[in-house]
């Protein structure tokens, strides 16, 4: 394992070693960074960049030491290296830009004193004599991975400085470029500018923060980059540009001074004004794209910057990859939200994909249900107030997904917010990804910010609502695929058999079965409603009232005090509900559609929270059609009246009849499965 250190303890040095670690990792080297020191206020995105390499160091496993930025070899770094106590025989290499021979000797001597042996030294002043910027903290090398053929639409990355948004010509130029034939615009901005842009009326479809992804990933996505930002954002822009050129990508220097093009790198000098870029690209670059790419790849500068050159100088041999990649698979990743809706929906679709290689990654509350369906499931870590930061769990999940997935796999995400872990994994691994995104978001939830990561999904599968007025387009494009409601089959077991089994299992006879499914109180506290229902059922000697909750959920202890009410933890709620005379339930996507498609008389008590779907509208749509009853959370007296009406006054039969006659759209399970399983995604 190669330990990479930087010459000083600056945030810049830390970032440089993370970037270099990623480059060596890309060549198959096992690399590690010492986690004993992290910069204060480390950028959130940089934590994701660094996470795969940070380790509590086991000195015995270190086989080589590489110190980058070695022209400034600080005492605190040397002290740490002494603390680590590296094995005595491992090679050590200093990599830096040394202004004088004495600087080389000093660096070499310092490390020699600490290690007790002489390190090698690579002076980038000789090895990479023309850096893209004079003050790079690390060796910006390019992996030179094969770039797809240069025909077709070009992925253009425009890298702007923060001040660009203050120029009134910027947004109109971007808008025009967004629709330019032959170019697929991606905009890269410093974080603050990116966040600001997301609040404006125009947001490009593909918008990135400079730190949102590693420069290696950005470079892999880009065919052309037009760089307007003179500030290299640490080494990031230089690394991205170098990576691109090593693989034949085209870099256009649009900085005011043209410093990049003046560096001897095969970089085109483009117009320093954004409005002029489009014409320049269309008339000068695009017609000559293959020739320019060939020039870039074959330029002497590109040769000096290749990672292979650096490997040779350091004496590194990339490990041979002797293990065949496993067959591709499809990984479903539902976010559990506050119930199991996403996981349940994924499981229903997966049922339709017989024979496909399927796996799941899910949060702990979903594991039993998914495993009960017969799927392997990679556990993800839920957010917790006990974590140091709000994204600590997502960092772990990122690591797990990164290990679990490989290029060629498909990832199917079902949830509302695309976490960094998911977003990064898709782009870093180059996965085909689909987003199952049910509609009916509340007003205010549909923002550019919430949807700006849609661009990483090649397919967005929208399970529609049963009623037309509930369906609305949030985004547009050929990647959007609408399918009918995803609903499970009505349980095959006859109602009477289920009721008999309940009677036997609970040791009591009943003639009326009422099922309440109002959750464990995470999304909304329904204690009062459940207590009231329990009280109502207590007056009915022949009634069995089951409060169904998911295993592990908690309900108020007082609910256990009623004779006719039983709290039941079950994974089989749908089968029990199907045997009920009345179902009282929230109006989440799955339970709502199960009620409709299974023809169950139901009272919906919608649960509303800022982060949830619009259950009020959903419940009301069914009620308006006479297919169910919708009762507000505060309408306790009405709840009592509706229970009586359904159980005693024939309204239950009316609802069943209406449901049987309802013209509901065809279910979309198979269609969604077909979209995911299709051999080729177009």
């Amino acid at each position, binding site marked *: 394992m190669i330990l990479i250190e930087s010459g000083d303890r600056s945030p810049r040095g830390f970032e440089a070693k993370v970037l270099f670690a990623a480059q060596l990792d890309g060549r198959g080297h096992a690399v590690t960074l010492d986690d004993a020191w992290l910069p204060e206020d480390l950028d959130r995105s940089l934590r994701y960049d660094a996470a795969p390499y940070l380790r509590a160091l086991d000195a015995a496993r270190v086989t080589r030491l590489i110190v980058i930025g070695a022209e400034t070899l600080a005492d605190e770094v040397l002290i740490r290296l*002494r*603390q680590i*106590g590296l094995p005595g025989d491992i090679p050590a290499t200093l990599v830096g830009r040394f202004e004088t021979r*004495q600087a080389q*000797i000093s660096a070499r*001597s*310092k490390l*020699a*004193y*600490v290690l007790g042996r002489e390190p090698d030294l690579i002076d980038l002043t000789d090895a990479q004599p023309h850096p893209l910027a004079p003050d790079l903290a690390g060796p910006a090398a390019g992996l030179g991975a094969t770039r797809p053929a240069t025909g077709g639409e070009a992925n253009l990355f425009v890298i702007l400085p923060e001040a660009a948004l203050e120029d009134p010509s910027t947004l109109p130029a971007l808008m025009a470029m967004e629709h330019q034939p032959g170019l697929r615009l991606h905009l890269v901005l410093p974080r603050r500018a990116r966040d600001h842009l997301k609040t404006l009326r125009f947001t490009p479809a593909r918008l990135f923060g400079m730190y949102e992804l590693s420069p290696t990933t950005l470079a892999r996505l880009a065919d052309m980059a037009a760089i307007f930002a003179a500030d290299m954002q640490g080494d990031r822009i230089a690394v991205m540009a170098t990576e691109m050129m090593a693989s034949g990508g085209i870099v256009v220097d649009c900085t005011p001074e043209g410093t990049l093009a003046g560096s001897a790198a095969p970089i085109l000098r483009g117009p320093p004004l954004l409005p002029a870029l489009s014409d320049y690209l269309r008339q000068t670059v695009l017609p000559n794209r293959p020739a320019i790419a060939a020039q870039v790849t074959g330029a002497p500068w590109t040769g000096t910057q290749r990672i292979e050159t650096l490997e040779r100088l350091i004496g590194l041999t990339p490990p041979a990859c002797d293990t065949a990649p496993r067959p591709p698979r499809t990984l479903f990743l539902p976010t559990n939200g506050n119930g199991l809706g996403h996981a349940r929906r994924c499981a229903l679709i997966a049922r339709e994909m017989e024979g496909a290689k399927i796996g799941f990654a899910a949060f702990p509350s979903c594991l039993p249900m998914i495993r009960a369906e017969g799927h392997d499931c990679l556990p993800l870590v839920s957010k917790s107030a006990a974590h140091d930061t709000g994204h600590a769990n997502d960092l772990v999940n990122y690591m797990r997904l990164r290990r679990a997935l490989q290029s060629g796999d498909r990832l199917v995400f079902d949830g509302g917010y695309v976490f960094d872990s998911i977003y990064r994994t898709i782009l870093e691994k180059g996965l085909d990804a689909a987003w199952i995104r049910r509609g009916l978001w509340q007003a205010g939830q549909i923002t550019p910010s919430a949807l700006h990561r849609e661009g990483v999904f090649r397919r967005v599968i929208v399970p529609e609502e049963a009623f037309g007025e509930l369906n609305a387009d949030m985004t547009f494009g050929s990647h959007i695929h609408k399918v009918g409601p995803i609903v499970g089959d009505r349980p095959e077991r006859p109602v009477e058999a289920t009721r008999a089994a309940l009677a036997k299992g609970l040791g009591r006879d009943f003639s009326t079965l009422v099922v309440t499914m109002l959750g464990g109180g995470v999304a909304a506290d329904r204690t009062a409603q459940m207590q009231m229902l329990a009280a109502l059922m207590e007056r009915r000697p022949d009634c069995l009232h089951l409060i169904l909750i998911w295993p592990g959920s908690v309900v108020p202890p007082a609910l256990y005090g009623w004779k006719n009410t039983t709290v039941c933890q079950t994974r089989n709620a749908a089968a029990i509900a199907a045997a009920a005379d009345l179902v009282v339930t929230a109006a989440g996507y799955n339970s709502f559609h199960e009620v409709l498609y299974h023809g169950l008389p139901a009272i919906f008590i919608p649960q509303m929270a800022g982060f949830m779907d619009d259950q009020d509208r959903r419940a009301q749509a069914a009620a308006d059609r006479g297919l169910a009853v919708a009762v507000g959370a505060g309408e306790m007296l009405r709840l009592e009246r509706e229970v009586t009406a359904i159980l005693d006054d024939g309204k239950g039969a009316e609802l069943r009849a209406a449901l049987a006659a309802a013209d509901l759209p065809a279910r979309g399970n198979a269609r969604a499965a077909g979209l995911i399983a299709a051999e080729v995604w177009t």
Partner: protein
Amino acid sequence: MNASRRIAYVIEPRFSGGTSAAVAAELEAIARFGPVTVHAIESGMFHGRAVAPQLEATLSALNIDLIWNAPVIAADLVILHNPSFLKFQDNLNAKIICRDMIVVTHENFLRPGGVEGFDVAACLSRIDRATLALGKYVAPISAANRTTVEGWRRTHPLPFGWQVLPETWFNICAFEMAAPPDRPQDRRGRHSRPGFEKFPAPAVLDLCFPPYAAANTILGADALIAEGVVRPHWTLLPFRGIEVAQYFGMIDIMVYFTAATWRESFGRVLAEALAAGKLALSDPDTAASFDGGVIGVRPDEVDAAIAAHLNDPARFARQVRKGQEAIARQSADAFADMFMGLADRLERRAAA
């Protein structure tokens, strides 16, 4: 000595260790014979650091003013101590006009393994460019130091016209000699500047300073303290944390190993320990400068060597006296004899 001979020293007075101590002792020896001027070069090596205390005290006692950054230095004989102070700058920033220039090489030109210790050619070149002289010389300070100078010359030429003096410009060891203890105990210690080069790996220190020793005192342990290398049986003290005399009161045995990739050109701390009546042990290369007065051992041989001497106090005393005799040969008088003989020889040569 010819009293009309003008002697000028060119020094960087902020070296904190052996260089400044050696210069201070040398000034005391030479100033007896006539006026000496001392020029201080403010190099790029010691920003913000003060003049070394021992040098400041000697200059004060001798009533010699430091002349800082003189643009021109003129004398018959100019002695420049430790050229390595020029390693971080492009020029000497002074013109030297003299009959003979002697550059005293306090630092080894090569480290163990033959790796260059500093950019010797650049430093000598800076002096050469700044100096108009009939003769320019390099003066090693010990046999070990001379070996590195000669080793360096095998692959690098000295500037044109320069020569290596056959005389050894040894460190003056004008110490009060203390008697060895009657009943020596296993009280071990070491002292040095806190630089990384001065300390071996922790594993070597563990061999040198074991838990069964009655005491282990390490003065100048700043780096160990920073590294968190803590042993309950070690007393770690920062550089200048206590007076050296007080430290010598805490030990009977000096065990001094450096980083394996660095060697002392002389080992003034060992000479100080011998003068204080301490048994001194070091690696064989470093010990060689003391004519058997310092016991040359490997780290894993330290315990056995100490045990042999503790079990035989007379042997202990003989060994200490042997070391004291060795350093006594590096007296101020001996240095003055060497100096005067050399100065006369150079003067005759110039006249010839």
